[in-house]
């Protein structure tokens, strides 16, 4: 028994790291083929990741966003629900957090409530957005993959609408070149930095990610809730017969899952961007989804994957600026990781 268990885990780790390694190698090859100077490009890439305290801070902030979305994905997947709509939930979280920060009258509140309340509102907005898919799932049996995916497009258009419309978030037009974006949020509602060092832009989001990771890990692996979700995910009829309210728990899973992405969106606005533009979510929802997939249901795995992709993205951006290699290479690597892992597990399944 023990041996089997060990083998299974070893195999999962092996395929995961193997897929990552292979994808990195192909990414390297692409850099080699496209860069004017291969070594310059690599230097720029590593500079972007670890070259300065600023770079590390930016990478970590990215990782926080990815980790939160990824944890939401893992939470829902425990109940065999697939929430692919992180991007849309980020959008809703960001809009509502910004609206609360700008017009919620929170900027004078003490004890950090000025930024905590917008974070909560953003979280709830994400929950609500994912909850729509949850209601459709439990009431009508609509496939949550489809509904969360389609809700992304609506969410992104809601962002566009809210920054275009004067009666919503668009900042007052002072001249003809005023861009369609929200006003900047008050300073008191911005997320505080963890350190005084002005070059390290690491904000409190990191604390949230770590704390929630611990909570989620305990809930899923030691808690009654995690057990119930697992039971539902494995066999919902037997779970219902055993008195587990499958509908309620599935709703809960979708709510929590969306909440994480909503919080990620709120943190993006309050922590780094400070105002809302159309397309502010810029694919983080999908990258977080990849982190969740890569982790295969493991919370520590999500953290590792999020760090990996967070740093990769920072490196890619710097490399693009310094040596002209498109940062799309990073996305190619990300995509290849998914393809390789899917392929490897299919291969492993066949062998059984």
């Amino acid at each position, binding site marked *: 028994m023990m041996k089997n268990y060990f083998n299974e885990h070893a195999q999962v780790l092996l395929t995961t790291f193997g897929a990552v390694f292979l994808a990195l190698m192909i990414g390297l090859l692409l850099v080699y083929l496209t860069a004017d100077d291969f070594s310059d490009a690599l230097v720029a890439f590593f500079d972007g990741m670890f070259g300065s305290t600023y770079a590390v801070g930016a990478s970590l902030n990215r990782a926080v966003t990815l980790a939160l979305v990824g944890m939401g994905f893992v939470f829902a997947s425990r109940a065999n629900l697939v929430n692919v709509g992180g991007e849309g939930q980020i959008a809703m979280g960001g809009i509502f957090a910004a609206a609360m920060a700008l017009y919620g009258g929170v900027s004078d509140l003490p004890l950090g409530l000025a930024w905590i309340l917008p974070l909560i509102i953003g979280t709830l907005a994400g929950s609500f957005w994912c909850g729509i898919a949850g209601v459709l799932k439990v009431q009508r049996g609509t496939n949550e993959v489809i509904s969360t995916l389609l809700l992304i497009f609506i969410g992104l258009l809601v962002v566009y609408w809210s920054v275009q419309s004067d009666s919503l978030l668009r900042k007052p037009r002072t001249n003809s070149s005023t861009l369609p974006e929200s006003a900047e949020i008050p300073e008191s509602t911005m997320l505080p930095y963890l350190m005084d060092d002005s070059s390290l832009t690491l904000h409190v989001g990191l604390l949230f990610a770590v704390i929630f990771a611990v909570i989620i890990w305990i809930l899923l692996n030691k808690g009654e809730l995690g*057990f119930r979700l697992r039971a539902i995910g*494995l066999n919902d009829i037997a779970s219902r*017969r055993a008195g587990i309210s499958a509908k309620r728990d599935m709703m809960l899973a979708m709510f929590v899952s969306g909440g994480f992405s909503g919080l990620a969106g709120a943190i993006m606005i309050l922590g780094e961007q400070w105002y809302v533009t159309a397309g502010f979510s810029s694919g983080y929802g999908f990258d977080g989804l990849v982190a969740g997939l890569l982790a295969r249901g493991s919370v520590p795995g999500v953290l590792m994957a999020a760090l990996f992709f967070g740093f990769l993205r920072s490196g890619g951006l710097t490399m693009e600026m310094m040596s002209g290699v498109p940062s799309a290479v990073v996305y190619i690597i990300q995509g290849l990781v998914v393809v390789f892992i899917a392929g490897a597990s299919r291969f492993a399944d066949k062998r059984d």
Partner: protein
Amino acid sequence: MAITNDVNELDKVPLLRLKSIGKKYGEFSALDDVELDIFSGRIHCMLGENGAGKSTLCKIIYGEEVASSGSMLYAGNDYEPLAPADALANGIAMVHQHFSLIHNMSVYENLMLGYVSGVLDVAEFVSYLINLSKRYGLDIDPYSRVSELSVGQQQRVEILKCLMREPRLLILDEPTAVLLPDEIDALLTTCKQIVAEGRSIVLVTHKLAEISRVADEVTVLRGGKQVMQCEFSEEQVDAMISAMIGSEIAISDLRLAGLSLAENIDVIATTNNDEKSADRKASQCMIIDDLSFVDERGNQCLSNITLEIKAGEIHGLAGVEGNGQTELGDILAGLSMPTSGRLYMPDFELTHATPSQITAAGVGIVPENRHRVGCIEELDLTENLLLSSIKNYSRFGLLNRKAMRDAAKILIDRFDVRAPSADVGFNNLSGGNQQKAVLAREISIESLRFLLAAHPTRGLDIGAVFAVYEHIRNSAKAGVGVLLISSELDELIAVCEKISVIYRGQIVGTLPADPQYRDQIGALMSGSGIQQRHSA
């Protein structure tokens, strides 16, 4: 294809001869030494309970399964089909229980598939279809969509699909199971027309009432063995019933006698004396009152079921599978809601109760489908044992794994679940031990007062069968009312005090569980002996 009309000659030489056909799946023997002759122009009925091997035999003839032993002769030649294509090439066609039609295509489009190629002449094909369907009395509109057809009409399309190939042998696997009474009449008439042309039919069924109207020959299978083969005659019907339900009364009674029989008769005697209404009221346990259920496809699965199970009584529900037992079980378990009627205990209304309310009322359910409803195989033994009481082991939302293991160990000991450890994966346990675990969970429900056990011993070895009935009987002794659903009449007679028979969703009779009534109960199970009821 030419079909000889020389009936005399064909009467002597069978169209298809099966010689000691056997089929094994691993250790399990699905068919054992079956000898069968099928003659041209005859309807050969194959009778047997579920799992008797009828479908397997049909699949072997049709080339979907390959026999493990034995051989077949078809029209005088060796016949070794490896795939349905071989069977079809030889003029053997089969209508399965599950249809293979494309729902959003019309009837003629479905029938064209694989039959025509090149340039399509729809008009000619449709007129051919109309002729064909008239010839066999298979009334169908070629232009209607399959999705709009009733199950009976879809079956006609499937039969047409076979007849288009001008088969010499047509296999119908349980065709009447899904049909309404008048559709059955039409189907049987069609069968007669088909064999009148010199073709043969193998008709699989477990309903005797229908067989007596068309059968020329009858083969009865039980447990993969051929227990009877004869030309059909009315006088043989009783023998067929006992062959189908099992004629080893003596053996099986002995088998369960240790548990039950003598003692049960005493219990019947005492309960019969207790017919005073006040006592009855006091001992009521579960009342099913005029319960009806129509499923989402509009089938009337249960009609006006009324049953009263008393405390301390084991009440059997006999019936061939598929006569509404599954639906009744699901309703009692709270997994589906009755269309009308009531379900209650003296102090609990259960008609629309959720599974957890039902459990809280002291109702234990050992479901018919262990894998779908009874357990979660991917979880471990402890988790399955405590599935319905998991809240009791949760403090501040965290599970107390040690307390869970301790509680599980007590149940494992008490119910003799043979497992290497309490946290072994449930799917690593044998079926018998899985069933014991489910039983352990349901019987250990706090203040258990009623237990539904649906086919609790199916697929179990004899030791586990003993254990399961031991526990059920102990519960009854402790005052729990038990409803035992089974299609094994011997077991019901040995374990129960009263047996109600369900047929086509109706209770068609309630008799004391006494061997002297077994033939009568068997007749009720197969639907014969209630003809008057149908016409009335």
